[in-house]
């Protein structure tokens, strides 16, 4: 391969340099019907799962067909998406916050051909390329992080756990039978780049072993005070270590009983990796939400403290999620979010109905967050 220059001259890096121009102006990208009716929308309706209509006070309508996507997306697939948008949508499309693609058309008669085209496209392996759904009182796409595909701190894979889960929940992606929307999210370590801590159901990659200490390299690669300061439980202290060679080096010591494996020290110091085949796995959280609708936004609660990584399909994890969804679907009232249902029936019943074992790991013991979660009443259920 021969190097192709863009025009950048490394000898004169500032020559013709353009910086700080920001993203392109969104106005360049609106479909014409959106540009014409912005701020004038009167109401919307979900016609069927995955298909919406928005009606403007000008009388114009925009029909949206929403499809799921794997988030990880190749240039080849993006070009196919562009071909579809050129054919049906005059070269416009948008993505949603939850990694869906939305194809918009300005009249109803354009919907059926678009739907048929999308539904007909499959990968050679058999999965849909553009499954229609993700609206209303169903399950929409899972937001997630990088996992083993591209990150240095994950305790699990993201794309794989999401694929396994969405295959199991696929009917609910294409249906709207649930009492309210159900949002599932995935983050592959406690850093929660995907911020899953307020989701109806959250899949969280989690380490369970203290960091491995690479004493020989630690002082060369790390600022020891930064690693010490990074620890939320003050489990790290400086220590001189004698190597097998007899050399004495500056390093650290970890009070292992105090470590809760958050990985913050590893972020500050590459010589403290946590990844471990047996130690790593999945935590399931449930009952969070971000909407202010009816009840206040709330955090997800840990309902399963650990499930081992069981590649490639994590069956124990997906079965537990399925049980939670089914218990919610049959037990909750219309409009009731997952967490509101759990709180109404009480956590005693929640664990019973979802057939999840309650263990001591589910009682909070982290600082004063913990105190507010303990039961301080005799109002409990047998």
């Amino acid at each position, binding site marked *: *391969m021969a190097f192709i220059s*863009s025009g*950048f001259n490394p000898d004169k*890096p500032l020559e013709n340099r*353009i910086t*700080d*121009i*920001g*993203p392109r102006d969104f106005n*360049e990208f609106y*479909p014409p019907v959106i540009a014409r009716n*912005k*701020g004038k*929308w*009167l109401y919307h*309706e979900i016609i069927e799962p995955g298909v919406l209509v928005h009606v403007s006070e000008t009388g114009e309508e925009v029909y*949206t067909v929403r499809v799921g996507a*794997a988030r*990880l*997306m190749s*240039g*080849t*697939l993006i070009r196919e998406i*562009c*071909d579809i948008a050129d054919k049906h949508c005059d070269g*416009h499309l948008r*993505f949603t*916050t939850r*990694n869906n693609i939305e194809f918009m058309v300005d009249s109803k008669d354009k919907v059926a051909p678009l739907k048929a085209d999308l539904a007909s496209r499959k*990968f050679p392996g058999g999965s849909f390329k553009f499954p229609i759904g993700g609206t*209303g*009182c169903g399950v929409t796409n899972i937001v*997630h*992080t990088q996992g*083993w595909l591209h990150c*240095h701190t994950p305790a699990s*894979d993201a794309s794989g756990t999401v*694929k396994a889960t969405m*295959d199991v929940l*696929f009917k609910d992606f294409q249906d*709207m039978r649930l009492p309210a929307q159900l949002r599932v999210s995935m*983050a592959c370590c406690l*850093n929660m780049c*995907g911020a899953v801590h*307020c989701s109806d159901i959250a899949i969280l990659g989690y380490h369970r072993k203290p960091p491995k200490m690479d004493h020989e390299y630690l002082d060369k690669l790390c600022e020891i005070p930064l690693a010490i300061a*990074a620890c*939320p439980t003050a489990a790290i202290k400086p220590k001189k270590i004698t190597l097998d060679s007899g050399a004495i080096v500056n390093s650290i010591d970890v009070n292992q009983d105090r470590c809760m494996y*958050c990985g913050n020290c590893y972020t*500050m110091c*590459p010589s403290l990796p946590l990844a*471990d085949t047996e130690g790593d796995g999945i935590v399931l959280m449930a009952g969070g939400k*971000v*909407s*202010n*609708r009816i009840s206040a936004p709330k955090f997800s609660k840990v309902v399963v403290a650990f499930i081992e*990584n069981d*590649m490639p399909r994590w069956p124990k994890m997906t079965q537990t999620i399925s049980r939670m969804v089914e218990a919610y679907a049959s037990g909750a009232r*219309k*409009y009731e979010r997952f967490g509101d249902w759990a709180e109404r029936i009480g956590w005693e019943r929640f664990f019973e109905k979802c057939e999840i074992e309650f263990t001591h790991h589910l009682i909070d013991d982290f*600082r004063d967050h913990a105190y507010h979660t303990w039961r301080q009443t005799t109002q409990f259920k047998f």
Partner: protein
Amino acid sequence: MKFKHATPLLDQLESGPWPSFVSDMKLEAEFRAKNEQGIDFQIPSDTVEDLLGILELSYKHGRTHWKHGGIVGVFGYGGGVIGRYCDQPENFPGVQAFHTVRVNQPSGKYYTTDYLRKLMDIWQLRGSGITNMHGATGDIIFLGTTTPQLEEIFYELTHNVNQDLGGSGSNLRTPADCLGSSRCEYACYDTNALCYFLTQTYQDELHRPAFPYKFKFKMDGCPNCCVASIARSDMAFVGTWKDEIRIDQEAVQAYIGGEIPANGGAFKGSRDWGPFDIQKEVIDLCPTECMWMEGKTLKIDNKECTRCMHCINAMPRALRVGKDTGLSILVGAKAPIVDGAQMGTLLAPFVEVKPEEDYSAVTEVIENIWNWWMEEGKNRERLGELIIRQGFQKALEVCNITPQPCHVEYPRTNPYIFWKEEEVPGGWVNDIEEYRKHHLR
């Protein structure tokens, strides 16, 4: 096509209905191997095959094979590129260096195909062709290129596509928004415009790390919070209104009569919930109990409404948000690292959104908060953690916002109250000798 590495575990993720990322990666690997267009790939042509190979190894080991860190970037920027190297370079040379480039997405994530194709022209030539659409913060993520390509990618992006990088590191992260008034009748302000304005205004903060840690802006057009601003941004801009919910009484009757489906059609699935019952589904579920029927007229005591959105969501053709709209600013939300998860706390109950005044009411709050956090925040301390350490009163004080009951869930339950010296008559200067004249030792 036979691939470079066998991937028996990953291959199992090709079946099932949900789009398979494995199948998609294989398509890209084939595209590169066949290279029917004769592209002079600037990173190894088998890079995607090696990516599949190293991921398969992680599935076998149950551990990641990406190394920690790698300081790379483009000249003059401290963010936008994340260095990434694998720990098995000999077995997977195509992903030995596999850096991420964050490209700042346009507001609302609207695209033209022409623009997306231009991005892919760059990325399939100079990178792996694999992307995330989109990353959790919102950027278009280009996954996998080598160090010599970084400046070339940046040059082509800025010169040929008029497009900049996003944020990473201890700086302002790429702001993100819901689609707002562009296609949503609930939007109380133009989220696309505010997101674009703040992104452009704070380019320096986006690209040159000067903060104690990351800082995220997110804009939601209404309290439904579709981009989860309230839970995952250091500063959340949530649209709201001050006046009355607009009612179309005829449409209310149409909902009662079953002519319009409830909740915008969100229940049109396989389950039959029976006929719509306005008393049970709207009036009784109102958290403030501020709604009732008088004959055929729906009444709302708007002064008691907390704008939770339920009635509007349930009957979008009958009820609309008010006309006196603006936004609430909440601060301090974050995921658990370092001190536990935090939800956004209400700081500014109502801010007018005035693009004609360069959103000065919004930028004033931002800059006051930043000045305080940059002065007082410790290394890797998020704004929410500083607020806990120094107290919420301090946040109100630096923003010149008058404390009001809406700032608390309930007033303090402990009377360990700190007073400022100037708040107590006579201050804290005391005279022990004068005291002893009346109180023996």
